[in-house]
């Protein structure tokens, strides 16, 4: 009863071994091989987003932007006649799910490229995998630049935004800078920004540099320490909740100077930080990777008209504008690639953007260049101020001083 199935199984296993050895060989895909996920009439892209969990609000906004862009592209006949098929997976804001999802998108769903995924802490776990498969990742939100061929960052990194903020503080005459940063990748970005940019402003000093525990809402001693140094301005590298809490406590202790947080931490353009902060949010500064949602910029107007028709949640949030812009930029890039859809041509075309940038209007011009630094395709960041219940542009997009762009 048992023996026959066993024999069959052994035979099957042997047969498989004999026939399918190619599957595990480390040949990698050669540049000339046709890339996956693209046919004459369809192109498949994928993203992993925190649709649930603690970052669900931003994840839903990010998803909305992708869907709005894909619908618009398809209603206009796709990219070079190819319909766009977007596969969006949920990672619940857990880093190991981000890694699993990217593998699923590449190996199982066979996407051509990963476009506008999120997860600054989880995505680094996919760099090696992407390198092996040569799958491009276009516009991840917002890890540090891994400086690798497959990954293109489309907006100012957290560090760049912080650098722009440091310049802004210096311009406003601040002498004493207080910093509160989280003990994770956010804090690492802030430290990078301080190390790069503070030497350029000898008049300004970091008077307090506090580190807080990731995931903890115990921020009061950090606030007390910063306040004790009587700073002129405060730079935050925290999550939304902690940013809101710190903002409340700073204002409660009578701090009136400028407080800045990057796009993710400030939730610039959206409510994720300013709503819980309540009245303390007045005058709060947020980094801008894409234009503010309420501006009268025509490119943003166009997106807004589509976003208002979107059925799901968070269609009109700043996150939605961001991923919408990224997908549209991707479409423009693929269009420029013409008939040669190989990954080699993808890299060639993308790295050629330095001389002929993609200009969308809603985000800074995308001008990728060759490695090592060229894949941070935009260094410019804007600053928005939350005032009278909405975000308004405080300082237009500009690059950090001395960055050469």
């Amino acid at each position, binding site marked *: 009863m048992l023996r026959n199935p066993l024999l069959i199984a052994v035979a099957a296993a042997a047969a498989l071994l004999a026939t399918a050895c190619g599957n595990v060989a480390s040949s990698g895909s050669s540049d000339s091989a046709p890339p996956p996920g693209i046919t004459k009439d369809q192109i498949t892209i994928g993203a992993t987003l925190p649709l649930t969990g603690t970052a669900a609000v931003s994840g839903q906004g990010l998803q909305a932007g992708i869907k709005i862009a894909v619908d618009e592209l398809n209603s206009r006949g796709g990219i070079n006649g190819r319909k766009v098929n977007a596969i969006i997976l949920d990672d619940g804001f857990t880093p190991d799910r981000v890694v699993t999802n990217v593998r699923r998108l590449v190996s199982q769903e066979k996407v051509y490229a990963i476009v506008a995924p999120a997860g600054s802490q989880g995505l680094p776990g996919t760099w090696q995998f992407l390198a092996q498969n040569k799958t491009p990742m276009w516009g991840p939100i917002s890890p540090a630049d891994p400086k690798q061929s497959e990954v293109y960052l489309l907006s100012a990194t957290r560090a760049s935004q912080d650098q722009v903020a440091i310049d802004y503080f210096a311009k406003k005459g601040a002498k004493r800078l207080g910093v509160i940063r989280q003990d994770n990748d956010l804090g690492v970005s802030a430290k990078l920004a301080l190390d790069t940019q503070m030497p350029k402003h000898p008049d300004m000093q970091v008077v307090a540099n506090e580190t807080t525990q990731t995931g903890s809402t*115990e921020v009061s001693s950090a606030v007390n320490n910063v306040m004790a140094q009587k700073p002129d301005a405060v730079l935050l590298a925290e999550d939304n909740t902690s940013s809101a809490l710190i903002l409340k406590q700073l204002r409660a202790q009578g701090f009136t100077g400028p407080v800045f947080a990057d796009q993710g931490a400030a939730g610039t353009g959206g409510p994720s930080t300013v*709503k819980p902060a309540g009245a303390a949010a007045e005058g709060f500064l947020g980094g801008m990777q894409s234009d503010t949602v309420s501006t009268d910029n025509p490119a943003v107007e166009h997106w807004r008209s589509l976003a208002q028709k979107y059925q799901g949640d968070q269609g009109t949030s700043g996150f939605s504008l961001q991923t919408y812009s990224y997908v549209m930029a991707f479409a423009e890039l693929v269009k420029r690639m013409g008939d040669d859809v190989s990954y080699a041509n993808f890299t060639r075309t993308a790295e050629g953007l330095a001389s002929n940038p993609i200009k969308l209007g809603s985000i800074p011009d995308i001008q990728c260049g060759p490695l090592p630094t060229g894949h941070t395709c935009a260094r410019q960041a804007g600053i928005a101020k939350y005032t009278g219940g909405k975000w308004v542009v405080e300082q237009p997009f500009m690059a950090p001083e001395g960055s050469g762009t």
Partner: protein
Amino acid sequence: MLQTLVSGLESGSWFALLGLAIVVVMKAADVPNFAMADIGLVATYVGISLAGAGVPFWLAVVTTLVTGILLGVVIDVALMRRLAKYGHFPLLLMTIGLSLALTALTGLVWGHDPRSFRAPWTGAAIEVGGGVAIGVSQIVSIVVGLLGAVAISAFFTTPVGAQMRAVAENRATARLVGVNAGRLSAIAWGVGGLIAAVTVMLQAQSALVSTLTPASLIIYGFVAATMGGFTSLFGTFAGGLVLGIIQQLVGTYISTAAQFSVALLVVFLVLVLRPDGFTKGMRLRDV
């Protein structure tokens, strides 16, 4: 320095109260309840929703408290009691599973945005000279925490409270002398839920709470309870306050990032240096 002390006493009050909630349930039901802070969060969110819908503040507060009590009792009757005969591990796991489910449920119903419970005094501060301002909400936390501790101590001197202590000391004997252990455990869970609701509500009127709050709050609650040997009400309350102050001092003079580690160190030191405080509790289970 004064600000540091007040901040320490404020968060210390939250830790102490949650520690008391844990100890009360421990005493009567013999369960280390990892879902305690989640119960408080659900109750507080009910209150916040009501207040947001225009219900008067004090009515919302009372509803929050009642929700906390009901949640505690329902959990005991529906889930915990039937498991009691299997020993400690299934009970402990049940509270962990419950904590997961409650957090996720809260996220599903109310979302993951942080929220605050606006009280009439929110935002008000008292100048104490030297440019230092103490928030009224901080004072409220400290005073309510103290009142709560006194009330719980008083509760244990009532006949019901005395029975509860008897159960904690010897379950079988207590049953022999006619104590209804089931009723007592329901009461303990109700009282625990009530205190947990107060704790999270206090935090929500002063700072912000979100679905992330229970995970860190419960650890500090357990630290406080450990300092009281899981039996002593006074030890737990004092332990919570001391923990709050230590945390602030560590945050001010060493690093905010070291706060959590110090709390863990406290647990370990207490367990290793004061094992005598625990032998009594141990014997209960181990014979």
